[in-house]
């Protein structure tokens, strides 16, 4: 059975759209930075370029888009009453963009004051978001796997920001903290605790609804979030500055949870009731294949130590996780959510006998398919960069082009909404004098 969407609590469309339209700009910046840095960005996990690229995607692209999705999804699907969404968006949106830009600049120029400023801005902004969204999720009368998953995801975001700000302070000064372990745990909470759990919670709703699949098995949707939380708590043991041997099993278990979710999603897609493929479905399929690829890579690492110690292996894993899993899934989700929101908001302005234009007119299907091909070409080229670093520059350029095309497609949809809304308002009878 599909879940329920309540549209009466929906925020103004400008609230999610500002985040959705900003995210691709950071994707373009990430692509251009990779094209500029080339092999040096690929060489090591700890290079300035690799860290800057990671945060352009994680904070610039993913956090922007996911914040927009949360601001829309919590009131509509989770029944949570977000406090003054317009005001919150006015404050969070520019702060996230400035914080992301400053953090990336800090990695590239190694300026202590930039690390401290970026850490303070992002911690304050994410803290505010966590309080507002967390309060809405705690107060909602709704229950179920999506609510649980989103609550733990928001907790995961808080932990990620706290660890991130600690790392920024560590990089700004000469603190003798275990920075490698801090970074491992920060990445685990960011990708597993926040991003994967949010993706899973939203997928429980939108995959069956938009892709016409059966519902996710109750056992999976009930247990995925608590098991992942336990895994992350065990992973966090290394914050004590030591890494026992069993941590390798925790790492594998976390990736197995993600791969399990991906495998079930692919199985559901294979059993969808109407066998139509659209860009959203294909983007999701690619994201899930990359998620399974992460587990397979980790298994190979466990079996072949020489591969595990290769300096470009973290780059390989990073490409699979960031552009491969999360940028793909977000990209596909945006292509369904934005036209759907356009349609619903326009319909609210019209009477019973009038229909908004078809969703397919809001972003041309062909434009989405072309962008999708460019995106997956970029992911494959970036992965190949782990083996042939000399093609990293080309991969970066292709990724920048893909994100620019995504931005153009989303702007087209937003313009469509604005133009049609203005026509409806112009045609409405003037109030009696």
């Amino acid at each position, binding site marked *: *059975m*599909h879940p*329920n969407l*309540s*549209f009466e609590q929906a925020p103004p469309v400008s609230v999610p759209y500002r985040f959705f339209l900003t995210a691709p700009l950071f994707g373009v910046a990430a692509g251009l930075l990779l094209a500029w840095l080339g092999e040096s960005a690929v060489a090591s996990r700890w290079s300035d370029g690799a860290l800057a690229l990671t945060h352009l995607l994680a904070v610039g692209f993913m956090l922007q888009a996911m914040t927009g999705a949360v601001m829309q999804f919590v009131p509509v699907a989770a029944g949570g009453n977000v406090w003054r969404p317009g005001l919150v968006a006015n404050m969070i949106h520019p702060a996230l963009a400035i914080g992301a830009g400053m953090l990336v600049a800090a990695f590239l120029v190694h300026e202590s004051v930039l690390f401290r400023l970026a850490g303070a801005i992002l911690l304050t902004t994410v803290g505010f978001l966590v309080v507002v969204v967390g309060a809405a999720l705690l107060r909602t009368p709704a229950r179920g796997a999506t609510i649980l998953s989103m609550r733990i995801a928001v907790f995961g975001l808080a932990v990620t920001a706290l660890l991130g700000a600690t790392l920024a302070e560590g990089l700004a000064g000469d603190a003798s903290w275990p920075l490698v372990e801090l970074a491992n745990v920060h990445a685990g909470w960011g990708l597993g605790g926040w991003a994967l759990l949010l993706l899973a919670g939203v997928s429980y709703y939108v995959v069956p609804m938009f892709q016409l699949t059966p519902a996710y098995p109750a056992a999976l949707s009930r247990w995925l979030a608590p098991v992942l939380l336990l895994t992350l708590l065990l992973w966090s043991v290394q914050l004590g500055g030591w890494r026992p041997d069993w941590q390798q099993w925790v790492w594998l278990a976390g990736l197995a949870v993600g791969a399990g979710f991906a495998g079930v999603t692919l199985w559901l897609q294979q059993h969808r009731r109407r066998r139509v493929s659209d860009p959203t479905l294909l983007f999701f399929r690619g994201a899930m294949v990359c998620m399974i690829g992460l587990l397979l890579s980790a298994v190979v690492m466990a079996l072949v130590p020489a591969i595990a110690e290769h300096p470009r292996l973290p780059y390989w894993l990073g490409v699979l996780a960031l552009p491969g899993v999360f940028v793909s899934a977000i990209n596909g989700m945006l292509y369904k959510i934005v036209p*759907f929101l356009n349609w619903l908001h326009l319909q609210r302005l019209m*009477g019973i*006998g009038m229909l908004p234009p078809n969703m397919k007119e809001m972003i041309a299907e062909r434009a989405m398919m072309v962008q999708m091909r460019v995106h997956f070409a970029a992911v494959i080229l970036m992965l190949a960069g782990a083996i042939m670093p000399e093609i990293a520059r080309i991969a970066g350029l292709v990724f920048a082009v893909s994100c620019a095309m995504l931005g153009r497609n989303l702007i087209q949809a937003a313009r469509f909404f604005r133009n049609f809304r203005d026509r409806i308002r112009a045609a409405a009878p003037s109030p009696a004098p």
Partner: protein
Amino acid sequence: MPRVIDGRELQPPEPLELALMALDTLPDDEELTMLLYCQPHPLFDILRRNGYRWTETVQDDGTHEIRIRKA
């Protein structure tokens, strides 16, 4: 003769589009039946705003049967 829209195999917002078109020509003494795998809250919002009433029953296979008529 009751009108029926089976939206179970349709992608949103197609069931809503069909419902809006059907409601536009629905005589006052007839009802429109919708079959869906979800509660269509956006439709309920529209019905509430435009003076319709509805009943909803959930079948064993998860189908929501929604019967709509003019209030």
